[in-house]
Protein backbone atom coordinates (compact mmCIF):
# COMPACT_ATOMS: atom_id res chain seq x y z
CA UNK A 1 0.00 0.00 0.00
CA UNK A 2 2.68 2.50 0.99
CA UNK A 3 4.53 1.39 -2.08
CA UNK A 4 1.56 2.31 -4.26
CA UNK A 5 1.39 5.73 -2.63
CA UNK A 6 5.10 6.32 -3.15
CA UNK A 7 4.89 5.12 -6.75
CA UNK A 8 2.06 7.59 -7.37
CA UNK A 9 3.10 10.38 -5.02
CA UNK A 10 3.02 13.18 -7.59
CA UNK A 11 -0.17 11.85 -9.16
CA UNK A 12 -1.85 11.94 -5.74
CA UNK A 13 -0.48 15.41 -5.00
CA UNK A 14 -1.66 16.63 -8.40
CA UNK A 15 -5.17 15.31 -7.85
CA UNK A 16 -5.21 16.96 -4.42
CA UNK A 17 -4.07 20.22 -6.01
CA UNK A 18 -6.58 20.06 -8.88
CA UNK A 19 -9.52 19.02 -6.71
CA UNK A 20 -8.53 21.30 -3.83
CA UNK A 21 -8.58 24.37 -6.05
CA UNK A 22 -11.97 23.41 -7.47
CA UNK A 23 -13.19 22.68 -3.92
CA UNK A 24 -12.26 26.19 -2.79
CA UNK A 25 -14.02 27.72 -5.80
CA UNK A 26 -17.16 25.65 -5.26
CA UNK A 27 -17.05 26.45 -1.53
CA UNK A 28 -16.91 30.13 -2.38
CA UNK A 29 -20.08 29.76 -4.40
CA UNK A 30 -21.96 27.58 -1.90
CA UNK A 31 -20.74 28.75 1.49
CA UNK A 32 -19.32 32.21 0.69
CA UNK A 33 -15.72 31.27 1.52
CA UNK A 34 -13.36 33.99 0.42
CA UNK A 35 -10.17 32.03 -0.30
CA UNK A 36 -10.70 31.69 -4.04
CA UNK A 37 -13.77 33.42 -5.46
CA UNK A 38 -14.54 33.19 -9.16
CA UNK A 39 -13.18 30.53 -11.47
CA UNK A 40 -9.91 29.72 -13.23
CA UNK A 41 -10.35 32.73 -15.54
CA UNK A 42 -10.15 35.12 -12.62
CA UNK A 43 -10.07 34.45 -8.90
CA UNK A 44 -10.51 36.97 -6.14
CA UNK A 45 -8.16 35.86 -3.34
CA UNK A 46 -9.06 36.65 0.30
CA UNK A 47 -10.98 39.70 -0.95
CA UNK A 48 -7.54 41.27 -1.33
CA UNK A 49 -6.22 40.75 -4.84
CA UNK A 50 -6.97 38.98 -8.11
CA UNK A 51 -5.33 36.14 -9.97
CA UNK A 52 -6.08 36.12 -13.68
CA UNK A 53 -5.55 33.82 -16.65
CA UNK A 54 -2.81 35.58 -18.68
CA UNK A 55 -3.88 33.80 -21.88
CA UNK A 56 -7.37 35.30 -21.51
CA UNK A 57 -5.84 38.74 -20.85
CA UNK A 58 -3.70 38.43 -23.98
CA UNK A 59 -6.78 37.62 -26.08
CA UNK A 60 -8.65 40.57 -24.58
CA UNK A 61 -5.76 42.88 -25.44
CA UNK A 62 -5.83 41.54 -29.01
CA UNK A 63 -9.59 42.11 -29.04
CA UNK A 64 -8.85 45.76 -28.36
CA UNK A 65 -9.82 46.11 -24.72
CA UNK A 66 -7.65 47.87 -22.17
CA UNK A 67 -7.98 45.49 -19.25
CA UNK A 68 -8.56 46.94 -15.78
CA UNK A 69 -5.50 47.16 -13.51
CA UNK A 70 -6.83 44.58 -11.02
CA UNK A 71 -7.05 41.92 -13.70
CA UNK A 72 -3.83 43.02 -15.38
CA UNK A 73 -1.79 42.71 -12.18
CA UNK A 74 -3.45 39.36 -11.45
CA UNK A 75 -2.47 38.17 -14.91
CA UNK A 76 1.13 39.29 -14.41
CA UNK A 77 1.37 37.41 -11.10
CA UNK A 78 0.23 34.18 -12.74
CA UNK A 79 2.37 34.75 -15.83
CA UNK A 80 5.52 35.36 -13.78
CA UNK A 81 4.77 32.43 -11.47
CA UNK A 82 4.68 29.97 -14.36
CA UNK A 83 7.27 31.71 -16.55
CA UNK A 84 9.93 31.93 -13.86
CA UNK A 85 9.03 29.18 -11.45
CA UNK A 86 6.70 26.36 -12.39
CA UNK A 87 6.89 26.19 -16.20
CA UNK A 88 3.85 24.51 -17.70
CA UNK A 89 2.65 23.17 -14.34
CA UNK A 90 -0.82 24.68 -14.88
CA UNK A 91 -1.64 21.82 -17.23
CA UNK A 92 -0.86 19.02 -14.82
CA UNK A 93 -1.39 20.58 -11.39
CA UNK A 94 -4.32 22.99 -11.82
CA UNK A 95 -6.33 22.41 -14.99
CA UNK A 96 -9.33 20.14 -14.31
CA UNK A 97 -9.32 18.97 -17.93
CA UNK A 98 -6.19 17.02 -16.99
CA UNK A 99 -8.37 14.62 -14.99
CA UNK A 100 -10.64 14.07 -17.99
CA UNK A 101 -7.83 13.43 -20.44
CA UNK A 102 -5.87 11.34 -17.92
CA UNK A 103 -8.86 9.06 -17.43
CA UNK A 104 -9.22 8.78 -21.20
CA UNK A 105 -5.54 7.83 -21.34
CA UNK A 106 -5.96 5.31 -18.54
CA UNK A 107 -8.87 3.65 -20.35
CA UNK A 108 -6.95 3.78 -23.60
CA UNK A 109 -4.10 1.87 -21.98
CA UNK A 110 -6.46 -0.58 -20.25
CA UNK A 111 -8.19 -1.37 -23.53
CA UNK A 112 -4.80 -1.42 -25.24
CA UNK A 113 -5.97 0.95 -27.97
CA UNK A 114 -2.43 2.26 -28.39
CA UNK A 115 -1.39 -1.03 -29.94
CA UNK A 116 -3.79 -0.76 -32.84
CA UNK A 117 -3.41 2.93 -33.48
CA UNK A 118 -2.06 4.10 -36.80
CA UNK A 119 0.15 7.08 -37.32
CA UNK A 120 -1.88 10.24 -37.24
CA UNK A 121 -1.09 13.25 -39.41
CA UNK A 122 -1.69 15.64 -36.50
CA UNK A 123 1.51 17.08 -35.11
CA UNK A 124 1.97 18.36 -31.59
CA UNK A 125 2.89 21.81 -32.79
CA UNK A 126 -0.63 22.37 -34.12
CA UNK A 127 -1.41 23.86 -30.71
CA UNK A 128 0.83 26.84 -31.46
CA UNK A 129 -1.20 27.44 -34.60
CA UNK A 130 -4.41 27.23 -32.57
CA UNK A 131 -2.88 29.78 -30.19
CA UNK A 132 -1.98 32.13 -33.05
CA UNK A 133 -5.30 31.58 -34.82
CA UNK A 134 -7.13 32.42 -31.56
CA UNK A 135 -5.22 35.68 -31.27
CA UNK A 136 -5.85 36.59 -34.92
CA UNK A 137 -9.56 35.85 -34.52
CA UNK A 138 -9.62 37.92 -31.32
CA UNK A 139 -8.17 40.79 -33.32
CA UNK A 140 -10.69 40.41 -36.14
CA UNK A 141 -13.85 39.69 -34.21
CA UNK A 142 -13.20 41.93 -31.21
CA UNK A 143 -13.84 39.28 -28.57
CA UNK A 144 -11.55 36.85 -26.74
CA UNK A 145 -11.85 34.09 -29.34
CA UNK A 146 -10.71 31.03 -27.42
CA UNK A 147 -12.63 32.02 -24.29
CA UNK A 148 -15.81 31.88 -26.38
CA UNK A 149 -15.30 28.21 -27.21
CA UNK A 150 -12.93 26.91 -24.53
CA UNK A 151 -14.00 23.49 -23.21
CA UNK A 152 -11.54 23.99 -20.35
CA UNK A 153 -13.47 27.05 -19.19
CA UNK A 154 -16.75 25.22 -19.75
CA UNK A 155 -15.48 22.52 -17.41
CA UNK A 156 -14.26 24.61 -14.48
CA UNK A 157 -17.02 27.17 -14.86
CA UNK A 158 -19.52 24.35 -15.17
CA UNK A 159 -18.35 22.67 -11.99
CA UNK A 160 -18.52 25.94 -10.07
CA UNK A 161 -21.58 27.67 -11.57
CA UNK A 162 -23.59 24.91 -13.28
CA UNK A 163 -22.71 22.77 -16.24
CA UNK A 164 -25.73 22.86 -18.56
CA UNK A 165 -24.83 21.24 -21.86
CA UNK A 166 -21.14 21.84 -21.14
CA UNK A 167 -20.81 18.14 -20.38
CA UNK A 168 -21.18 17.48 -24.12
CA UNK A 169 -18.01 19.44 -24.84
CA UNK A 170 -16.21 17.53 -22.09
CA UNK A 171 -17.46 14.22 -23.50
CA UNK A 172 -16.16 15.17 -26.94
CA UNK A 173 -12.70 15.83 -25.49
CA UNK A 174 -12.81 12.53 -23.60
CA UNK A 175 -13.79 10.54 -26.70
CA UNK A 176 -11.26 12.39 -28.85
CA UNK A 177 -8.48 11.46 -26.42
CA UNK A 178 -9.77 7.92 -26.01
CA UNK A 179 -10.53 6.97 -29.61
CA UNK A 180 -8.89 9.43 -31.98
CA UNK A 181 -5.58 10.58 -30.65
CA UNK A 182 -3.45 9.74 -27.63
CA UNK A 183 -2.94 12.87 -25.52
CA UNK A 184 -5.04 14.54 -28.21
CA UNK A 185 -6.44 17.59 -26.45
CA UNK A 186 -3.72 18.46 -23.92
CA UNK A 187 -0.80 17.34 -26.05
CA UNK A 188 -1.83 18.54 -29.49
CA UNK A 189 -4.67 21.07 -29.58
CA UNK A 190 -5.10 23.12 -26.42
CA UNK A 191 -3.67 26.65 -26.84
CA UNK A 192 -3.42 27.17 -23.07
CA UNK A 193 -0.66 24.55 -22.95
CA UNK A 194 0.92 26.18 -25.98
CA UNK A 195 0.78 29.54 -24.21
CA UNK A 196 2.51 28.24 -21.07
CA UNK A 197 5.04 26.29 -23.17
CA UNK A 198 5.86 29.47 -24.98
CA UNK A 199 6.18 31.65 -21.88
CA UNK A 200 7.80 29.03 -19.64
CA UNK A 201 11.18 28.78 -21.33
CA UNK A 202 13.17 29.89 -18.29
CA UNK A 203 11.36 28.32 -15.34
CA UNK A 204 13.19 27.10 -12.25
CA UNK A 205 11.61 23.77 -11.40
CA UNK A 206 12.75 21.16 -13.87
CA UNK A 207 13.18 17.42 -14.10
CA UNK A 208 16.81 16.33 -13.85
CA UNK A 209 18.14 13.20 -15.52
CA UNK A 210 21.18 11.29 -14.26
CA UNK A 211 22.34 9.06 -17.09
CA UNK A 212 24.64 6.94 -14.87
CA UNK A 213 21.57 5.52 -13.08
CA UNK A 214 19.53 4.99 -16.23
CA UNK A 215 18.93 1.42 -17.38
CA UNK A 216 17.27 2.39 -20.67
CA UNK A 217 13.98 0.75 -19.64
CA UNK A 218 12.08 3.68 -21.25
CA UNK A 219 9.27 3.46 -18.67
CA UNK A 220 9.46 7.26 -18.35
CA UNK A 221 8.87 7.78 -22.05
CA UNK A 222 5.89 5.42 -21.98
CA UNK A 223 4.40 7.33 -19.06
CA UNK A 224 5.16 10.85 -20.31
CA UNK A 225 2.27 12.84 -21.81
CA UNK A 226 4.79 14.88 -23.84
CA UNK A 227 7.47 12.25 -24.64
CA UNK A 228 9.30 14.52 -27.08
CA UNK A 229 10.70 16.43 -24.08
CA UNK A 230 12.58 13.35 -22.86
CA UNK A 231 15.10 13.25 -25.72
CA UNK A 232 18.11 13.12 -23.39
CA UNK A 233 16.99 9.98 -21.54
CA UNK A 234 19.74 7.38 -21.66
CA UNK A 235 22.03 9.71 -23.59
CA UNK A 236 23.25 12.46 -21.31
CA UNK A 237 22.68 13.92 -17.85
CA UNK A 238 20.95 17.25 -17.48
CA UNK A 239 17.69 19.04 -16.94
CA UNK A 240 14.69 18.60 -19.21
CA UNK A 241 14.87 21.98 -20.90
CA UNK A 242 11.96 21.65 -23.32
CA UNK A 243 9.22 23.87 -21.92
CA UNK A 244 6.51 21.57 -23.25
CA UNK A 245 7.23 19.48 -20.14
CA UNK A 246 4.28 19.92 -17.77
CA UNK A 247 6.28 19.09 -14.61
CA UNK A 248 3.73 16.40 -13.79
CA UNK A 249 6.42 14.18 -12.27
CA UNK A 250 5.03 11.01 -13.86
CA UNK A 251 8.48 10.07 -15.21
CA UNK A 252 10.01 10.43 -11.75
CA UNK A 253 7.39 8.13 -10.23
CA UNK A 254 7.76 5.35 -12.75
CA UNK A 255 11.56 5.39 -12.68
CA UNK A 256 12.86 2.56 -10.54
CA UNK A 257 16.51 3.53 -10.90
CA UNK A 258 16.67 7.04 -9.33
CA UNK A 259 17.60 8.44 -12.71
CA UNK A 260 15.06 11.27 -12.56
CA UNK A 261 14.18 13.90 -9.97
CA UNK A 262 12.83 17.45 -9.61
CA UNK A 263 15.50 20.09 -9.30
CA UNK A 264 15.77 23.85 -8.83
CA UNK A 265 17.54 26.08 -11.30
CA UNK A 266 20.55 26.99 -9.13
CA UNK A 267 21.35 23.33 -8.69
CA UNK A 268 21.28 22.74 -12.42
CA UNK A 269 23.97 25.36 -12.85
CA UNK A 270 26.04 23.91 -10.01
CA UNK A 271 26.02 20.47 -11.51
CA UNK A 272 27.06 21.80 -14.87
Amino acid at each position, binding site marked *: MTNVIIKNRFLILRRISQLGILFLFVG*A*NLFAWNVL*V*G*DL*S*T*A*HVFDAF*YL*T*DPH*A*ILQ*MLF*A*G*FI*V*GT*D*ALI*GGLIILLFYALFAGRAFCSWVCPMNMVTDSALWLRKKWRLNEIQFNTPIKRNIRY*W*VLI*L*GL*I*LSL*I*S*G*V*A*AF*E*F*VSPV*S*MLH*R*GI*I*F*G*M*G*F*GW*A*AIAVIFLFDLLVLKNGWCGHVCPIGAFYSFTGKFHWIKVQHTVENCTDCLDCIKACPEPQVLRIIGKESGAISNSECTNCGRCIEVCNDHALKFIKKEKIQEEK
Partner: protein
Amino acid sequence: MQKQTKNTSRREAILKVFQGAGILSLGGLVWGAYLNKAKASKLVLRPPAALKEDDFLKACIKCGACVQACPYETLRLAQPQEEIPVGTPFFNPRLVPCHMCVDVPCVPVCPTNALDIQKLIPIGELNTPKNMDVNQMDVGVAVIDEKSCIAYWGIQCDACYRACPLINEAISLEFERNERTGKHAFLKPIINPDTCTGCGKCEHACVTEKAAIFVLPREVAEGKAGNFYIKGWEKNDEDRLKTDKSESTIKGRTNDEDYLNDWEDLIDD
Protein backbone atom coordinates in the same frame (compact mmCIF):
# COMPACT_ATOMS: atom_id res chain seq x y z
CA MET B 1 18.81 10.85 -58.58
CA GLN B 2 19.92 13.40 -56.03
CA LYS B 3 18.27 16.14 -58.01
CA GLN B 4 15.03 14.27 -57.96
CA THR B 5 14.98 13.83 -54.17
CA LYS B 6 15.77 17.49 -53.75
CA ASN B 7 12.90 18.36 -56.01
CA THR B 8 10.51 16.03 -54.17
CA SER B 9 11.43 17.45 -50.80
CA ARG B 10 10.80 20.96 -52.07
CA ARG B 11 7.45 19.87 -53.48
CA GLU B 12 6.69 18.26 -50.14
CA ALA B 13 7.61 21.39 -48.23
CA ILE B 14 5.43 23.57 -50.44
CA LEU B 15 2.59 21.08 -50.14
CA LYS B 16 2.92 21.12 -46.37
CA VAL B 17 2.78 24.90 -46.25
CA PHE B 18 -0.41 24.91 -48.30
CA GLN B 19 -1.90 22.05 -46.27
CA GLY B 20 -1.21 24.00 -43.08
CA ALA B 21 -2.68 27.15 -44.56
CA GLY B 22 -5.73 25.17 -45.68
CA ILE B 23 -6.36 23.58 -42.30
CA LEU B 24 -5.77 26.91 -40.59
CA SER B 25 -8.18 28.85 -42.78
CA LEU B 26 -10.81 26.12 -42.53
CA GLY B 27 -10.53 26.23 -38.76
CA GLY B 28 -10.52 30.02 -38.78
CA LEU B 29 -13.60 30.10 -40.98
CA VAL B 30 -15.65 27.83 -38.72
CA TRP B 31 -14.36 29.40 -35.52
CA GLY B 32 -14.84 32.95 -36.83
CA ALA B 33 -18.35 32.19 -38.10
CA TYR B 34 -19.27 30.86 -34.68
CA LEU B 35 -17.88 33.98 -32.99
CA ASN B 36 -19.91 36.25 -35.25
CA LYS B 37 -23.06 34.28 -34.58
CA ALA B 38 -22.46 34.23 -30.82
CA LYS B 39 -21.79 37.97 -30.79
CA ALA B 40 -24.99 38.70 -32.68
CA SER B 41 -27.33 37.75 -29.82
CA LYS B 42 -28.51 41.19 -28.73
CA LEU B 43 -31.55 40.27 -26.62
CA VAL B 44 -29.57 39.85 -23.43
CA LEU B 45 -29.96 41.77 -20.19
CA ARG B 46 -26.56 42.32 -18.60
CA PRO B 47 -25.78 43.12 -14.95
CA PRO B 48 -26.04 46.75 -13.78
CA ALA B 49 -23.39 49.18 -15.01
CA ALA B 50 -22.34 46.87 -17.85
CA LEU B 51 -20.51 48.45 -20.76
CA LYS B 52 -22.20 48.56 -24.16
CA GLU B 53 -22.74 45.02 -25.45
CA ASP B 54 -19.81 45.06 -27.91
CA ASP B 55 -17.40 46.43 -25.31
CA PHE B 56 -18.87 44.19 -22.64
CA LEU B 57 -18.11 41.08 -24.69
CA LYS B 58 -14.54 42.30 -25.13
CA ALA B 59 -14.14 43.05 -21.44
CA CYS B 60 -15.93 40.25 -19.59
CA ILE B 61 -13.47 37.56 -18.48
CA LYS B 62 -16.30 35.24 -17.35
CA CYS B 63 -15.13 34.83 -13.77
CA GLY B 64 -18.62 34.94 -12.26
CA ALA B 65 -17.66 37.41 -9.51
CA CYS B 66 -20.86 39.39 -10.12
CA VAL B 67 -22.91 36.20 -10.01
CA GLN B 68 -21.44 35.26 -6.64
CA ALA B 69 -21.96 38.78 -5.31
CA CYS B 70 -25.64 38.80 -6.25
CA PRO B 71 -27.67 38.01 -3.10
CA TYR B 72 -30.90 37.14 -4.97
CA GLU B 73 -29.45 34.71 -7.50
CA THR B 74 -30.66 37.06 -10.20
CA LEU B 75 -27.46 36.87 -12.23
CA ARG B 76 -26.41 33.65 -13.95
CA LEU B 77 -23.56 32.66 -16.23
CA ALA B 78 -24.72 31.58 -19.68
CA GLN B 79 -24.41 27.85 -20.31
CA PRO B 80 -23.44 26.38 -23.68
CA GLN B 81 -27.01 25.50 -24.71
CA GLU B 82 -28.25 29.06 -24.24
CA GLU B 83 -28.10 31.48 -27.15
CA ILE B 84 -25.88 33.85 -25.24
CA PRO B 85 -22.07 33.95 -25.41
CA VAL B 86 -21.08 31.13 -23.07
CA GLY B 87 -19.96 32.11 -19.59
CA THR B 88 -21.17 35.71 -19.71
CA PRO B 89 -23.46 36.96 -16.91
CA PHE B 90 -27.08 37.85 -17.64
CA PHE B 91 -30.50 37.70 -16.04
CA ASN B 92 -34.01 36.76 -17.01
CA PRO B 93 -36.37 39.08 -15.12
CA ARG B 94 -39.40 36.85 -15.69
CA LEU B 95 -37.62 34.31 -13.44
CA VAL B 96 -35.71 36.59 -11.06
CA PRO B 97 -35.64 40.36 -11.56
CA CYS B 98 -32.90 42.68 -10.39
CA HIS B 99 -33.75 43.90 -6.89
CA MET B 100 -31.62 47.02 -7.25
CA CYS B 101 -29.59 46.59 -4.04
CA VAL B 102 -28.62 49.97 -2.62
CA ASP B 103 -24.94 49.00 -2.39
CA VAL B 104 -24.94 47.30 -5.85
CA PRO B 105 -22.62 44.45 -4.72
CA CYS B 106 -22.26 42.96 -8.21
CA VAL B 107 -20.48 45.96 -9.73
CA PRO B 108 -17.33 46.78 -7.68
CA VAL B 109 -16.20 43.12 -7.68
CA CYS B 110 -15.69 43.11 -11.45
CA PRO B 111 -11.92 42.75 -12.04
CA THR B 112 -11.89 43.95 -15.64
CA ASN B 113 -14.29 46.92 -15.35
CA ALA B 114 -16.70 45.22 -17.73
CA LEU B 115 -19.11 46.42 -15.05
CA ASP B 116 -18.05 50.02 -14.68
CA ILE B 117 -18.65 51.80 -11.36
CA GLN B 118 -18.52 55.12 -13.20
CA LYS B 119 -21.85 54.39 -14.86
CA LEU B 120 -23.62 54.52 -11.49
CA ILE B 121 -21.93 57.64 -10.13
CA PRO B 122 -24.15 60.76 -10.27
CA ILE B 123 -22.56 63.66 -12.11
CA GLY B 124 -20.15 65.63 -9.98
CA GLU B 125 -19.51 62.96 -7.36
CA LEU B 126 -16.28 61.09 -6.64
CA ASN B 127 -15.67 57.82 -8.48
CA THR B 128 -15.80 55.45 -5.50
CA PRO B 129 -18.09 52.47 -4.87
CA LYS B 130 -19.64 54.34 -1.92
CA ASN B 131 -21.12 56.98 -4.22
CA MET B 132 -22.91 54.51 -6.49
CA ASP B 133 -26.56 55.30 -7.01
CA VAL B 134 -28.46 52.24 -8.17
CA ASN B 135 -31.20 54.39 -9.70
CA GLN B 136 -28.67 55.41 -12.35
CA MET B 137 -28.47 51.86 -13.64
CA ASP B 138 -29.58 51.24 -17.19
CA VAL B 139 -29.93 47.54 -17.90
CA GLY B 140 -32.62 48.12 -20.49
CA VAL B 141 -36.05 49.64 -20.79
CA ALA B 142 -39.51 48.22 -20.14
CA VAL B 143 -41.90 47.98 -23.07
CA ILE B 144 -45.65 47.31 -22.95
CA ASP B 145 -47.56 45.26 -25.46
CA GLU B 146 -50.86 47.13 -25.21
CA LYS B 147 -52.76 44.37 -26.99
CA SER B 148 -52.05 41.77 -24.31
CA CYS B 149 -52.02 44.11 -21.29
CA ILE B 150 -55.33 43.51 -19.52
CA ALA B 151 -55.26 47.02 -18.00
CA TYR B 152 -55.55 48.35 -21.55
CA TRP B 153 -58.58 46.07 -22.00
CA GLY B 154 -60.25 47.76 -19.08
CA ILE B 155 -59.69 45.05 -16.46
CA GLN B 156 -58.28 46.54 -13.29
CA CYS B 157 -54.64 45.53 -12.87
CA ASP B 158 -51.77 47.60 -11.60
CA ALA B 159 -49.34 44.77 -10.80
CA CYS B 160 -46.43 46.31 -12.74
CA TYR B 161 -47.13 49.77 -11.37
CA ARG B 162 -47.06 48.49 -7.77
CA ALA B 163 -43.96 46.38 -8.39
CA CYS B 164 -41.93 49.23 -9.86
CA PRO B 165 -39.20 50.43 -7.46
CA LEU B 166 -39.52 53.87 -9.06
CA ILE B 167 -43.30 54.02 -8.79
CA ASN B 168 -44.80 57.10 -10.43
CA GLU B 169 -41.43 57.86 -11.99
CA ALA B 170 -40.70 54.92 -14.25
CA ILE B 171 -44.28 53.65 -14.48
CA SER B 172 -47.27 55.90 -13.94
CA LEU B 173 -50.96 55.24 -14.43
CA GLU B 174 -52.97 57.19 -16.93
CA PHE B 175 -56.70 57.40 -16.23
CA GLU B 176 -59.00 57.40 -19.18
CA ARG B 177 -62.76 57.05 -19.48
CA ASN B 178 -63.94 53.65 -20.66
CA GLU B 179 -66.47 54.50 -23.37
CA ARG B 180 -67.59 50.89 -23.70
CA THR B 181 -69.19 50.76 -20.25
CA GLY B 182 -69.63 54.46 -19.83
CA LYS B 183 -69.00 54.31 -16.10
CA HIS B 184 -65.52 52.76 -15.65
CA ALA B 185 -61.99 53.98 -16.17
CA PHE B 186 -58.95 52.53 -17.86
CA LEU B 187 -55.91 52.55 -15.60
CA LYS B 188 -53.23 52.35 -18.23
CA PRO B 189 -49.62 51.87 -17.16
CA ILE B 190 -47.29 54.27 -18.98
CA ILE B 191 -43.53 53.85 -18.98
CA ASN B 192 -41.14 56.74 -18.76
CA PRO B 193 -38.05 55.44 -20.60
CA ASP B 194 -35.86 58.19 -19.14
CA THR B 195 -36.17 56.89 -15.58
CA CYS B 196 -36.78 53.17 -16.20
CA THR B 197 -33.71 51.21 -15.04
CA GLY B 198 -34.69 47.94 -16.68
CA CYS B 199 -34.71 46.01 -13.40
CA GLY B 200 -37.58 43.87 -14.67
CA LYS B 201 -39.71 43.79 -11.52
CA CYS B 202 -42.69 44.74 -13.71
CA GLU B 203 -42.02 41.84 -16.07
CA HIS B 204 -41.73 39.53 -13.07
CA ALA B 205 -45.00 40.80 -11.60
CA CYS B 206 -47.04 40.80 -14.81
CA VAL B 207 -50.07 38.53 -14.45
CA THR B 208 -50.57 37.57 -18.09
CA GLU B 209 -49.45 34.16 -19.36
CA LYS B 210 -46.54 35.68 -21.24
CA ALA B 211 -45.56 39.03 -19.78
CA ALA B 212 -47.29 41.96 -21.50
CA ILE B 213 -44.62 44.28 -20.05
CA PHE B 214 -41.03 43.24 -20.56
CA VAL B 215 -37.53 44.62 -20.52
CA LEU B 216 -35.49 44.96 -23.70
CA PRO B 217 -31.94 46.23 -24.08
CA ARG B 218 -32.14 49.90 -24.98
CA GLU B 219 -30.55 49.53 -28.40
CA VAL B 220 -33.24 46.99 -29.31
CA ALA B 221 -36.20 48.89 -27.85
CA GLU B 222 -35.38 52.41 -28.95
CA GLY B 223 -35.59 54.06 -32.34
CA LYS B 224 -33.56 57.03 -33.49
CA ALA B 225 -34.91 60.18 -35.10
CA GLY B 226 -31.61 61.25 -36.61
CA ASN B 227 -30.67 64.91 -36.83
CA PHE B 228 -32.94 66.02 -39.69
CA TYR B 229 -35.72 67.07 -37.33
CA ILE B 230 -35.53 70.16 -35.17
CA LYS B 231 -37.56 70.81 -32.07
CA GLY B 232 -38.45 74.39 -32.96
CA TRP B 233 -39.79 75.03 -29.47
CA GLU B 234 -36.43 74.31 -27.86
CA LYS B 235 -33.88 77.11 -28.11
CA ASN B 236 -30.82 74.80 -28.01
CA ASP B 237 -32.19 72.46 -30.61
CA GLU B 238 -33.00 75.27 -33.03
CA ASP B 239 -29.41 76.53 -32.79
CA ARG B 240 -28.35 73.30 -34.48
CA LEU B 241 -29.71 74.73 -37.74
CA LYS B 242 -26.98 77.35 -37.75
CA THR B 243 -24.11 74.94 -37.21
CA ASP B 244 -25.37 71.84 -39.01
CA LYS B 245 -23.69 71.23 -42.33
CA SER B 246 -25.35 68.01 -43.39
CA GLU B 247 -27.19 68.12 -46.70
CA SER B 248 -30.92 67.67 -46.62
CA THR B 249 -31.27 66.39 -50.16
CA ILE B 250 -29.37 63.46 -51.48
CA LYS B 251 -27.93 64.39 -54.84
CA GLY B 252 -27.20 61.52 -57.12
CA ARG B 253 -28.87 62.09 -60.45
CA THR B 254 -27.26 64.20 -63.12
CA ASN B 255 -30.56 65.82 -63.93
CA ASP B 256 -33.40 66.08 -61.45
CA GLU B 257 -36.11 65.99 -64.15
CA ASP B 258 -35.00 62.51 -65.10
CA TYR B 259 -36.62 61.39 -61.88
CA LEU B 260 -39.94 61.40 -63.75
CA ASN B 261 -38.56 60.31 -67.10
CA ASP B 262 -36.63 57.34 -65.76
CA TRP B 263 -39.41 54.74 -65.83
CA GLU B 264 -37.18 51.74 -65.65
CA ASP B 265 -36.20 52.47 -62.05
CA LEU B 266 -39.80 52.88 -60.96
CA ILE B 267 -41.24 49.68 -62.36
CA ASP B 268 -40.38 46.45 -60.67
CA ASP B 269 -39.83 43.43 -62.82
